[in-house]
C-alpha cells in the first residue's frame, strides 16, 4: 500500500512515496518553491521513479509553507510534526532536531517515544536561515551548495555580525573589498548562522541525539560550526532534505491504519 508525502517549501519542493509505511519507494527534490511548477514536477518525478500511477496512491498528505495551496492532497500537517515524524523514522533515538529551512529555523524537542513535546522557532527578522546563505553566496558569486566545501581551507574566521541579513550583506561586501580571503569569509558566514541557531537550540535544550534536517544540513561548513557552538555531535543524513515529505507520507499511512482499525 502506497502513501505519498509532499513538502512544499519556500525554495524547494520535495516528495516521498512510501510503501506500507516502511520502505521508501521513491524520493525527489526540485529546487523550485511554492507557487511554481516545482510542485507538480516533483510529484511527477517521484511517480516515475516508483513506477506507479497517481491512482495507485492510497493517500496523499502535504506539508510545508505551501501546504494550503495543493488541492490534490487528502490532508495536511504542519512541517513541525512532519519533520519530527520523518526524523524519528530515520534516527530512532533522536530527541533534538534542528531544521534550517529557507525561511525559518526550528528546533524540535521529542519525547523518547518520538512525540514532539516542544518547538522553538526563530525570532522575527533574524539572519541564520537558508535565505541568508543564498544572499551571502550571491555576493560571493558562488552557489550556495559550494559554500560547504570552501571554508575547510579557512585560516581565520572572519567576524560577521548576524543581527540582520541586510547589514551582514554590506559587511561581507566591505570585507571582500578589503581582500579578506574567501575561505575566511565563508567561515565567518557559517559561524554567524551557527551562533544564531545555537541560541535557539539552547533555548529548547540539547538532549541527545541531535540531528539536522532541511536543505542547509547539506552544508558541511554550517554543520561543523553549529556542532562546535552547541558542543555536540550532529547527525546528518544524506536524505536530510526529504525528512518533511517522509513525515507527511508516514502521517498518511498512520491515518489509513487508523481508518482500518475502526472498521
Amino acid at each position, binding site marked *: 500500500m502506497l502513501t505519498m508525502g509532499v513538502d512544499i517549501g519556500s525554495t524547494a519542493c520535495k516528495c516521498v512515496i512510501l510503501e506500507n509505511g516502511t520502505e521508501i519507494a521513491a524520493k525527489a527534490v526540485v529546487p523550485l518553491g511554492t507557487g511554481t511548477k516545482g510542485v507538480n514536477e516533483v510529484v511527477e518525478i517521484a511517480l516515475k521513479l516508483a513506477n506507479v500511477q497517481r491512482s495507485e496512491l492510497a493517500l496523499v498528505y502535504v506539508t510545508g509553507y505551501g501546504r494550503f495551496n495543493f488541492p490534490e492532497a487528502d490532508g495536511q500537517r504542519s512541517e*513541525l510534526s512532519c519533520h519530527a515524524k520523518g526524523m524519528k523514522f530515520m534516527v530512532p533515538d533522536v530527541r533534538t532536531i534542528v531544521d534550517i529551512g529557507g525561511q525559518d529555523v526550528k528546533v524540535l524537542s521529542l519525547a523518547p517515544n518520538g512525540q514532539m513535546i*516542544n518547538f522553538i522557532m526563530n525570532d522575527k527578522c533574524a539572519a541564520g536561515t537558508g535565505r541568508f546563505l543564498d544572499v551571502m553566496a550571491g555576493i560571493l558569486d558562488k552557489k550556495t551548495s559550494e559554500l560547504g566545501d570552501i571554508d575547510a581551507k579557512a585560516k581565520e574566521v572572519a567576524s560577521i555580525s548576524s543581527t540582520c541579513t541586510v547589514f551582514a550583506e554590506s559587511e561581507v561586501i566591505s570585507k571582500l573589498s578589503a581582500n579578506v580571503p574567501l575561505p575566511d569569509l565563508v567561515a565567518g558566514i557559517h559561524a554567524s548562522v551557527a551562533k544564531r541557531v545555537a541560541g535557539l537550540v539552547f533555548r529548547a535544550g540539547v538532549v541527545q541525539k541531535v540531528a539536522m534536517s532541511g536543505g542547509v544540513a547539506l552544508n558541511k561548513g554550517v554543520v561543523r560550526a553549529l556542532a562546535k557552538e552547541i558542543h555536540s555531535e550532529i547527525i546528518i543524513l544524506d536524505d536530510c532534505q526529504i525528512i518533511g515529505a517522509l513525515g507527511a507520507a508516514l502521517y498518511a499511512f498512520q491515518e489509513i491504519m487508523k481508518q482500518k482499525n475502526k472498521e
Partner: protein
Amino acid sequence: MTEIAVGDQKAKIKKPLPKSRQMVNEQTAKAYADAWEAKKNHQPIGWSTAIFPQEICETFGVPILYPENNAASVSAKHMGEQYIEHAEGTMRYPINICSYARLNIGMADVLDDDKYVSDPKMPRPDFLLLANNSCTQLMKWYEALSRNLNIPIFFVDCLFNYYEEEPSSHKVKYVRSQIENCIKDLERFLGKKFDWDKFLEVQKISQQNRVLFNEIVELNSRIPAPMSGFDLFNYMAPLVICRGKASTTAIFEELKKEVLEHIENNTSTFPGDEQYRVHWEGIACWPNLGFNLKTLKRYNVNAVMNGYVTAWDVAYEPGDLDGMAKAYQISSTNSLSTPTIMGKRVESMKHFGCDGMLCHVNRSCKLMTFHIHVGREMVEKELGVPIATFDGDQSDTRVFSEAQFETRLQGLVEIMKENKETKEGERD
C-alpha cells in the same frame, strides 16, 4: 453571519449583536460624546493612561479619554498607519518605540488637520493623567505629549515590584501621597472642590464593577466555555474607560445574564467546536483580531482565558486610601515580577482547564515579552503543557504574519492533540 438564499443570490444577514455588546458600543460612544460636549462648552478634558486612578476624575465629573484604548480601536479599524507614518517620518520618532505611542503622538500632532480621518476621534486634551504601572514608556510618551501640546501632567508614579513580596509600607506611603497631592493639584487646576463623599460612592461602584467582571470571567472556566475568550477583549473596554460608572454595572449585569443563559442552554459565543482550550498571553493583535479568531476557530481552539484582562482587577476596600494606593501599585501585568505573574498564570490555567498557552510576542511591549521569555520554563515545569509563541504587534500592522501565526498554532494544536490522545489512551 447567516446566509439565506434569496432567489439566485445569497444574502448575508449579520446576526444581531448581543444586547450587552450594543450597550458597550453605546457607552463608548457616550464617553466620546461627553468629551466633545465638554470641549464645546470650554470645559477641560483629560487624556489618561490605562490604569490611572480613574476614581479621581470620575469624582470631579471631568470627561477622560484613554489614548491606549483609542489606539487599539483605531488600529483595529486599520486607520492607524497614517499616524504611525507621521510620527516616524516628520516627527522623527524611531520605529522601535511602542506603536500605541507612535500612533497617538502622531495623532496628537495633527488633531486640527482635516486630512487625517479616524474613528473614534478624540478632542484635544487640556491635561494628562499618568500612571506608569503599565510601563515606563508611558512616562516618556506622556512627556512627549506634554511638551508637544503644552499641557500639564498629573503623575502617580506606581513604582515596580521587582521581587515577589508584598509592596513595603514606604512604597504604599509614596503612592498614597501622590494620590492625595494629585487631588489637591487637580482642585487648583480645575477650580473645583473634590467631593470626598462622592469619591466613596465612586470607589464602591468601581469595586462592584470589578467583582462583576471577575464573576463573568470565572464563568468561562466551565468546560465547554459559554464564551469565546476573545469576547473578553471587547468587554474589557467598560472596565478600562468607565470603571467607576453605573453604566458599566448595567453592562456587566446584562452580560452575566447572557452568559448564564448560554450555560443554561449549553450554547456558547465561541463560533465552533471547542476541542482545545488555551490561555492567550499578551495583548491582542488589534488589527488582526478577525484573522486570529477565524484561525483559532478553524483549529477548534478557544482562547478561554487571557492574562491581559486581569490588569484592571484593582481591588481595595472603599474608604481605604492606603489599600487603593497599593492596589494601583500592583495592578498591571507589567508592575509585577515574572515569578509572580507566572504563578498567577499557572493557577489560572489549571482552573480554566487549559491544554496549552498561546503567546503573542508583541513587538511593542518589551515587558510582556520578557514575561513570556522568562516565564515559559516556569509554566512548562509546573504544568507540562505546550507553549507556542508568534510575532505580532498591538497596532503596527507590519509585524504580524498570517502564515507564521497559522503554522505555529497548528504546531501547538498537534502537540495538544497528541497529549489528549495519550491521556485518553492511558485511561483506556
